[in-house]
């Protein structure tokens, strides 16, 4: 039984489109619908309130090993018929590849995940507005040095998807998330810093305003008066958020597709020591703590935990159906996508197994180093093919085991290969951040800090 606007009719749409298949074709229809609300507060008032529903469908057609794709931002039947026709026509221009094909059911059961809360559905717009206003108010009150708040927002999304294929896949899933985000401006002696704090959950009651405000304000305040450090090589302690950013990039290099296409620095290194023994890395979108957790991947196969590095040894790579077939392996359920793109290998919910030492104890063990609180330029400064990286860094100097003066306008540089081998310790402070990788404190020896 399905109420109007529920998963039932999304699955019907997907199945109906796939049902229009012609002999000799494989067809996959991926349908998505999301409802979002976004509230921004400014100067004690609602600056903007947006609410809307987005729908779309992506249709993949495979004929004789050639793939074509078309998408449309509507579920209108006439348009979807045209999109299928367009995908079919597009397929004629692809080059044949024997490994191309849709996923076939592999018998792996999807994880059972509590991804939707009735609480979020029943939260009024007025209550969401109050959250954003309260967030701004508490940020302004947190510290006398807060001079303004650039962003104080509440957002939520309730998303549903359905996939139907000619290869007997018909799956649906639904997930919901909400978050608050604050960017306070702090000033002392003419020096300004902007902070960022966030809290995420499945329901508004899981949002922690004080935590977001503390992260946003306190971390900005401690950077006031930062100066450019001297260039040298030293021990670097990465903030959990920074670790998460690096994990995203490392995840890309562990894509089976990148390996097959000669674009991964880890190609041919399975079974080798690629990281320090304290590193155990997995992609685990089955962990309910991750906002990115979901029962199915972008091809309708069950999500599963995939071990990538264990005790520093490379275990293997992530595969979708295509990369798996080409490598002579099964898909690891690692296809990511939206309705506007075909599935491709993605490193969902990366997580490092935490160590046993607290962040405070790790910092106490560093005689001369820096704590990197923020990095910038990751998309321009990291080459995932060569492994070279060089990113802007802001944070605190560590001297004799305690935080000393803040620094800014510096860079940290190394290669991803070296950085992984140079990890001296993993913190105990494992935490899922946003929809991406889990954060955890990392201590890395011998990194170049570029300053004056």
């Amino acid at each position, binding site marked *: 039984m399905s109420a109007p606007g529920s998963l039932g009719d999304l699955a019907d749409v997907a199945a109906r489109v796939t049902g229009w298949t012609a002999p000799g074709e494989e067809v996959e229809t991926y349908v998505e619908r999301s409802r979002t609300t976004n509230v921004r507060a*400014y100067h004690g*008032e609602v600056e*903007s*309130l*947006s*609410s809307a*529903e*987005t*729908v*779309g469908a992506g249709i993949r057609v495979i004929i004789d090993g050639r793939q*074509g*794709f*078309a*998408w*449309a*931002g*509507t579920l209108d039947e006439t348009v979807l018929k045209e*999109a299928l026709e*367009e995908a079919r026509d*597009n*397929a*004629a*221009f*692809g*080059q044949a590849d024997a490994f191309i094909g849709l996923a076939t059911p592999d018998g792996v059961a999807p994880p059972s995940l509590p991804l939707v809360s009735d609480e979020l559905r029943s939260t009024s717009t007025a209550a969401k507005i109050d959250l954003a206003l309260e967030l701004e108010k508490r940020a302004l009150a947190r510290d006398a040095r807060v*001079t*303004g708040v*650039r962003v104080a927002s509440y957002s939520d999304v309730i998303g549903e998807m359905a996939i139907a294929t000619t290869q007997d896949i018909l799956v649906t899933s639904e997930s919901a998330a909400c978050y608050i985000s604050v960017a306070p*401006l702090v000033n002392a002696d003419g020096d*300004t*810093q*902007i902070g960022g704090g966030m809290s995420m959950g499945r329901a508004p009651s899981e949002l922690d305003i004080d935590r977001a405000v503390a992260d946003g304000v306190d971390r900005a305040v401690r950077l006031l008066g930062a100066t450019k450090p001297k*260039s040298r090589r030293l021990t670097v302690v990465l903030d959990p958020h920074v670790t998460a950013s690096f994990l995203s990039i490392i995840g890309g290099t562990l894509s089976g597709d990148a390996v*097959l296409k*000669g*674009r991964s620095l880890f190609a041919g290194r399975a079974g080798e020591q690629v990281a320090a023994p304290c590193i155990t890395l997995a992609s685990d979108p089955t962990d309910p703590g991750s906002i990115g957790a979901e029962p199915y991947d972008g091809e309708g196969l069950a999500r599963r935990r995939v071990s990538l590095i264990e005790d520093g040894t490379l275990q293997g790579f992530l595969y979708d159906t295509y990369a798996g077939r080409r490598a002579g392996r099964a898909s690891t359920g690692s296809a990511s996508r939206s309705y506007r*793109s*075909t599935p491709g290998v993605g490193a969902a919910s990366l997580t490092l197994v935490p160590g046993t030492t607290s962040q405070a104890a790790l910092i106490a063990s560093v005689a001369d180093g820096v704590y990197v609180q923020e990095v*910038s*330029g990751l*998309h*321009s400064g990291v*080459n995932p*093919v*060569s*492994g070279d990286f*060089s*990113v*802007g860094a*802001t944070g605190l100097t560590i001297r004799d085991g305690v935080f000393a003066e803040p620094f*800014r*306008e*510096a*860079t940290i*540089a*190394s290669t991803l290969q070296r950085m992984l081998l140079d990890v001296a310790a993993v913190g105990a402070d494992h935490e899922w951040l946003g929809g991406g990788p889990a954060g955890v404190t990392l201590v890395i020896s011998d990194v*170049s*800090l*570029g*300053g004056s």
Partner: protein
Amino acid sequence: MDQTVVGRVLGVALRTGGDFAEVFVEEARSSSARLDDGKVEQVSSGRSRGAGIRVVVGDTTGFAHTADLTEAGLLLAAEAASAVARQGGGQTRTVSLSSRGAPPGPSAAILPETITKAAKVDLLVRAEASARAAGGAIRQVTAMYADNRRQILVANSDGLYATDDQVKTNFSVSAVASGDAGMQTGRESQGYTMGWEFFDDFDVEEAGRLAARRAITKLDARPAPSGTMPVVIKSGGGGVLFHEACGHGLEADLVGKKASVFQGRRGEQVASPLVTLVDDGTMGHEWGTYRIDDEGHPAAHNVLISDGILTDYMYDFLRAREEGRPTSTNGRRQSYRHLPMVRMTNTFLVNGTEDPDEIIRQTPHGVYVANLGGGQVNTATGDFVFGMTEAYLIEDGVITHPLRDANLIGNGPEVLTLIDAVGNDFAMGSPGLCGKDGQGVPVGDGQPTLRVQALTIGGTAA
């Protein structure tokens, strides 16, 4: 779309007491083709249409969007957007719209949708063959063709009713080369606000050779230095410097929230007298060009910095309205599903007078950057970074060894004052996608060869 329907929708949007209402209708179509790993992987097409409706009351904006362009669908969205304004008396206002003739601007001579897919795929095959022929070290090549067409209609309660038809076409090639010291990458990308006629002048084979040559050159690259030194940036290769160093900081929404280091500095000397910086949405067929912005106002040529003096910020309509001044027509949005905000268009440093070769000769020791990748800025502090994807050492006034990729880092207000040479060889750079608050819009940038006295290079060499 029927003008009277749009008028009725605006009237309903204002019923709850809004001061201003706007309907933005967009129909977008795109097609792309990608060759990777020796095969044409896929040809894709996509389309979307919908409308975004916003209602402003006081300092508050309500926004809703819909893919349902029937009058009923639009009215529902108008009601949702107007829910933020509750004090109104429930009277539907009448909005009379007057259609504006389209201002001059780029148009597509040959719509890409009229070109066969086979012809688009053929470009990829030619570019790939040329990249692979550049040397045995080339291990992998990706070539991408993409076009998109965006037809927009903007109408608002001030009576504005304007339309535009925006067509963009772009092409890129990326190559991976492999050598003793590992793998390196090279890329060439170009795109314009035009149709298929783009390929009359753009040689896809040359693009393939360029991407391959960049990757092969870097196989012998040395680690980039770590520290501060003079940096010469090749014309057309580094406009992103200004985009990051001060462009974002001159956006009035950030300035208004005191989140920019350039706040309150209009009329002041903020840069070397050699610096005249312009943002120009009317610039030929450049990547960031349009006839009207996404709030319906004709694109403009805006001087931001003149001989080092900050002349003005960039504005969207709402921010300008608050300050009682005209918009600089920088109001842009990613799609009908997004609210407009202040965005750059084509941002560039105007030509200087010096011979670019002479600038290099007069640099005893430094780095020559032929190409910059993307960047990022913290507008509150002015600190920015951007990646060099093709760079060389300058030794005794001569360009010598290639350098591995690294980021440059600097502080916007400081770097602007440290520009001590500007060449006479202005060129625009590669097409860019600028991200802000989760929205991406196409932007262009450009500059002549220039030198910054001191920039920090985040390499690994001592």
